[in-house]
């Protein structure tokens, strides 16, 4: 196999010759290619570079293309009451992409300070009027006593997946998480052959920052569950992340470009290639909202009319 790197060192410039029929294939931002003439799938292996490490693990696709289409349709149907329908929308393109991501883990050591609410009940007497007479009664009331608490919290933060692709922002990936990491396989070209494998477009430093944000969010949620008492307020914490590790992985995502109408721009719906969770941008239909409000007003009006008729 001959590899021609072209005049620049950018991965976008790399071309290679199909080992089957000799056609020249442009790699673009992917590390796999399928020859348009003989349909031979090619996987490129390259040495790991500091800014562009090779994937360590892959989560293979388990959702087939047909199933992904069904899941996206089901997702669309669930939103039909307030959103623009995708029924009859033209699916411009549907591609299974191994999206580059990073798997992060660390030890979180936090110190926190919060006010803990401890409830107690008090019995109080009150006067009320019963049958025209003033009587004294007792009732119990729950009162919260607030106490300061500060302390440590340490735990492993594991299984945090963040995107390494500028094409699929982290917020979008989070919508279709979680991935079942028990199905993780060590990266092998055999697991991605014939599929699009996107090269990472975010550096390790950027991914680490994203993952640190998620680790802090995880710690905050854990601390909220960790607090004793009947309630808590004003929780503040300071967290240190140590022994961090970040491993490049590939996660399976079905990407659908859908055009609701011919005159409208295409929208992207993504579907988890392992769990089938689908998500796309919410496009609220003003016409449907107006229709629902009109229907609600009509029901109220009918109710009022019936009540008035009954009162006569």
């Amino acid at each position, binding site marked *: 196999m001959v590899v021609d790197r072209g005049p620049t060192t950018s991965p976008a410039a790399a071309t*290679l010759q199909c080992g089957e029929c000799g056609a020249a294939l442009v790699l673009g931002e992917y590390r796999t290619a399928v020859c348009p003439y003989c349909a031979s799938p090619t996987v490129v*292996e390259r040495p*790991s570079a500091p800014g562009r490490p090779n994937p360590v693990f892959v989560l293979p*696709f388990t959702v087939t293309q047909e199933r992904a289409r069904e899941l996206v349709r089901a997702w669309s149907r669930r939103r039909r009451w307030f959103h623009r329908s995708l029924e009859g929308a033209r699916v411009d393109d549907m591609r299974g992409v191994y999206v580059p991501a990073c798997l992060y883990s660390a030890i979180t050591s936090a110190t926190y300070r919060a006010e803990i609410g401890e409830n107690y009940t008090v019995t109080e007497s009150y006067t009320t009027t019963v049958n025209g007479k003033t009587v004294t009664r007792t009732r119990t009331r729950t009162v919260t006593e607030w106490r300061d608490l500060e*302390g440590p919290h*340490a*735990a492993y933060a594991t299984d945090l997946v963040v995107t390494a692709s500028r094409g699929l922002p982290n917020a979008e990936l989070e919508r279709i998480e979680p991935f079942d990491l028990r199905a*993780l396989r*060590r990266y092998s070209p055999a697991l991605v052959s014939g599929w699009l494998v996107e090269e990472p477009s975010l550096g390790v430093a950027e991914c680490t920052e994203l993952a640190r944000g998620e680790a802090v969010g995880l710690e905050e949620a854990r601390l909220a569950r960790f607090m*004793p008492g009947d309630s808590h307020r004003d929780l503040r914490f300071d967290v240190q992340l140590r022994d961090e590790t970040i491993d490049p992985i590939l996660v399976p995502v079905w990407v659908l470009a859908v055009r609701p109408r011919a005159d409208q721009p295409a929208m992207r719906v993504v579907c988890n290639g392992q769990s089938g969770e689908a998500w796309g941008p919410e496009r609220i239909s003003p016409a449907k909202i107006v229709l629902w409000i009109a229907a609600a007003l009509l029901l109220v009006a009918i109710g009022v009319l019936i009540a008035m008729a009954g009162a006569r």
Partner: protein
Amino acid sequence: MTECPRCHTPLEASDLRCSICALAVAREADGGAGPSGLRARILRCRECAAAVSYSAAAQAPQCGFCGAVMEVEQPDDPIEAAQWLVPFSVDHEGAARALRAWLGSRGWFRPRDLSAAAAIHTMRPLHWSAWVFDADASVTWAADSDMGSGRSAWAPHAGSAGFEWRGILIPASRGLREPETARLAPGYAMDRAVPIAQAGQPLEGGAIEAFDVQRSAARRRIADAIESMAVADLQARGHIPGRRFRNVHASVLLSRLVTRRFVLPAWVAAYRYRGAVYRTIVHGQEPSIVLGEAPISWSKVALLVGLALAVLLVILLLVGTR
């Protein structure tokens, strides 16, 4: 056996990540790319030499022409298998004697002829399965206790503690119930355990209980058990001030978790008394540990209730006559 560089937990063969802290296990050798930098690779079918793609339906690389499926490295999640066997030191006769002695010492409420009239129905040797672990843990905790309480009965407390657990037994048995395994566990001489491969033939009619759980599920059960144990130990060992506790939350940072899989000996017996069958368990090494069911003598219970009522009546009569 190598260990995780972060939490020093020994790694099992074929682990991709540490089971405790999720650190990725380094690949042994990277076949990677050649000296030219980039290397393009076409995977070929072993049957017909056509190019092969990964199939989501087959969940394996599959040839589009002849349908042959290529095997790839699968995540290894085997069913847990015993590594160590603790041998019996109480034989069939000894177990039967222990059971008779136990039946004879069941107290006044049991039938007087229980030991003599009970017929041992079955007495089978069983090796039941359990995990035994050693671990170090740094535990941070938060809880409510009665110490320092104000108007409310509870006050919040927080702190940290270090634990070194050694030889802690977690039952994996499905045949024995949790309270039974808890009673049996302290009586075993674990230092007499032998590797399962060298254990020889089981006793006649005996069975070695399978773990019947995959490694990943076993690890979850062990982690859950450790967390429950941390919560119990924090209260029992006086780490949390006070005498009454609630909302005890513990965050366990485990390290050096070493898990061994044992099978432990017990005699599972059933005896018949007046037509009914009762189940008992005799410890396989310590014959003084016997647990199980025994019938109650309802005539003795009725006699005692009658006596108590008679005494009550006499007292009432005496009080009434004054």
